[in-house]
């Protein structure tokens, strides 16, 4: 949002600048020699005053404040609605970035066409000037803003999704025009520039659904009775209150080498009923399996201490 404000400020400055700068280059050179040049400046100044009068500045400020407040109120209401209507939480939240863009676009359009109301030549000149000025001065910012638009239009993820970018994994809380914010499992807020997101691969765990797959890994001694272990793992998964039963629970077995020993890796693939319980599901499945394995003596110390060296 604040970049729109910068852009607006820049626009206003450039609306003034073509004429002023043109005037500057001639008038400064001729300032000392020609006293009559001051008379030439007056029409230019009056044109600038016409474009940016006090009433217009007040109007612009009013529109900006109004848009800002309206945006805040609507976002607050949508967040309340989303949290209260759990089934539609993600659907409601994903409208927030669109609302942001639409509101600020309308505000900018209204300011330029309704309040400043510059002639078409000025708009074209400003367009070109803004393009060049911003292109040079704010390349990175522009990249991020375009990245933001691409994210909103392409929708590789939505607010509320669980995504992984580089080393960061967490729930998307905000898709801004410059950056996207995610909250990690450790409750850290990570801001990732949109340009980075567009240029990197993004892994989306739930693709806008309330549920997502959770993979729990359990390492077992290589001599473990696999049928028994798989049965325990399956029953642990279906016993968890956080599991989403409309999707299948799968237990897969892999042979792994760990510290020069062969071990069996049990992968339990289950869906969580709400992405917010993702880690609780993982923790509960792990706890249930380990408790049961210990109870049945499958993880007894002597078993674990039988290394199977890789030859």
């Amino acid at each position, binding site marked *: 949002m604040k970049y729109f404000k910068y852009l607006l400020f820049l626009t206003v400055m450039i609306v003034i600048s073509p004429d002023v700068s043109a005037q500057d280059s001639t008038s400064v050179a001729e300032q000392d020699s020609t006293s009559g040049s001051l008379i030439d400046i007056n029409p230019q100044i009056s044109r600038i005053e016409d474009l940016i009068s006090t009433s217009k500045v007040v109007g612009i400020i009013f529109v900006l404040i109004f848009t800002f407040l309206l945006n805040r109120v609507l976002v607050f*209401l949508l967040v*309340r*609605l989303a*949290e*209260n*209507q*759990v*089934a539609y939480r993600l659907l409601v939240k994903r409208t927030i970035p669109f609302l942001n863009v639409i509101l600020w676009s309308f505000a900018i359009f209204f300011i330029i066409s309704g309040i400043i109301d510059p002639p078409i030549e000025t708009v074209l000149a400003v367009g070109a000037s803004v393009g060049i000025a911003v292109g040079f001065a704010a390349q990175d910012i522009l990249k991020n803003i375009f990245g933001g638009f691409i994210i909103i239009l392409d929708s590789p993820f939505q607010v509320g999704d669980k995504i992984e970018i580089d080393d960061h994994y967490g729930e998307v809380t905000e898709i801004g025009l410059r950056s996207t914010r995610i909250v990690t499992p450790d409750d850290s807020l990570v801001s990732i520039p949109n340009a980075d997101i567009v240029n990197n691969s993004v892994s989306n765990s739930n693709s806008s659904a*309330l*549920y997502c797959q959770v993979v729990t890994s359990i390492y077992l001694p290589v001599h473990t009775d696999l049928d028994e272990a798989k049965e*325990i793992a399956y*029953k*642990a998964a*279906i*016993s968890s*209150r956080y599991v*989403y*039963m*409309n999707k299948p*629970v799968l237990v897969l077995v892999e042979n792994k080498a760990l510290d020069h020993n062969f071990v069996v890796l049990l992968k339990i693939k289950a869906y969580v*009923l*709400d992405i917010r319980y993702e880690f609780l599901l993982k923790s*509960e499945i792990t*706890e*249930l399996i380990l408790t*049961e394995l210990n109870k049945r003596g499958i993880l007894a110390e002597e078993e674990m201490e039988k290394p199977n060296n890789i030859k």
Partner: protein
Amino acid sequence: MEALAIAWRFSTRKLRVIIRPIQKVFGFSVIRDTSSQKIIDLSTYLTETDTKISELPKSYRDLFKNDSDIDDELFVNTSNNIHNLKKVYEAWAEGVSTNAAIIGERGSGKSTLIHTFQKTLPEDLNILNVNIEYSTWKEEQALSFLSAQFDIKDVKRPETLVRAINDQKESRVVFIEGLQNLYLRNINGFDALEILWLVISETKENIFWVVSCSRYAWDFLSKAKGVETHFTHLFYTDLVSDEQMFEVIMSRHDKSAYRLLFEPDESTRKSRAYRKRLHKPAEAQEYLKKEFFNRLTEISKGNISVAILLWLRSIKKVEGRTITILPFNSADIESLDLLTSEVLFVLASLLLHDSLRVAELCRVMNISLSESRVLLSRLKSRGILLESNGLYRVNQLVFRQVIRMLKKRNIVH
């Protein structure tokens, strides 16, 4: 000035009517200062139901008794279940290995269907009725329970039980009621069910098995353990149409000598449709009756016991031979402050098992005994749960609302 004050009062009242539902959707407290009063009202409403119903004339109460052994003329044969069940039995009698499962919400008439079906069977047929009232989920519990039902002693292994049943060489029909009590959603809670599957599959030539199970337990077991694969025919009792629901209530009422008088509630009184019928009392009564049953069928959603309970709870007074019916307010439990995620999971566990004890809930939820006790007693004190002999279950008056809330939160599907 007075006109202005009236206009102001009128417009604020109208505005409040519009704003309240919006506030509710957005999750704002509707009227903060009276919310505690609202909770008290709801708790009182839920807990005083038994007292209210007990004040009704006994003869009238008896007609609506939640009893599986009802008169044939009061039985509503949903989806022609009796006829279809009979056909499945006849196929078994002819040597086809069939069996049946009856599925429905608690109070939807599973036991009534079984008892009514039994009456159609040949009198000389050996029938065994097994009612699993309490949670029986351990292997040894299940073995001793089942062996006692078949009058077999010293059973230590499921195979021994199967052999002993087959040795009896007797054709019989076995009705098992309460399959939901034969498991516990716990890592070790499926052993008893596995024994029953073995027994059913190994004895189906000699025994015609009919098993009843509550709807949400069945749905869970179907997804988790493929329960439906063990049965050749499935019957549902909670698919009662609106017309059948009307029939259920009115056939009982018509057996009494009472006359019905429907009263309008606040919103109906203001409605144009009602006001224009005011000068024709018979038409107004017909309109109110229709409105009442529309609401009743919408809330009970095919559950007969919920409908009966709501009907009895709607009786405002009994004067002489006239019963006055006032539309009920469906208890809104979503505005209660106690509905934390922990509480929602407790309610979901109770739906999956129909009823649970404190110790069983702590196994299902993987929580401590004291936590389990606190959670259950908190819900009981608010009237959401009812307790009898240490077994907790969801109050039928809020049964539908609980399901709706859990579905909305993706906990029950």
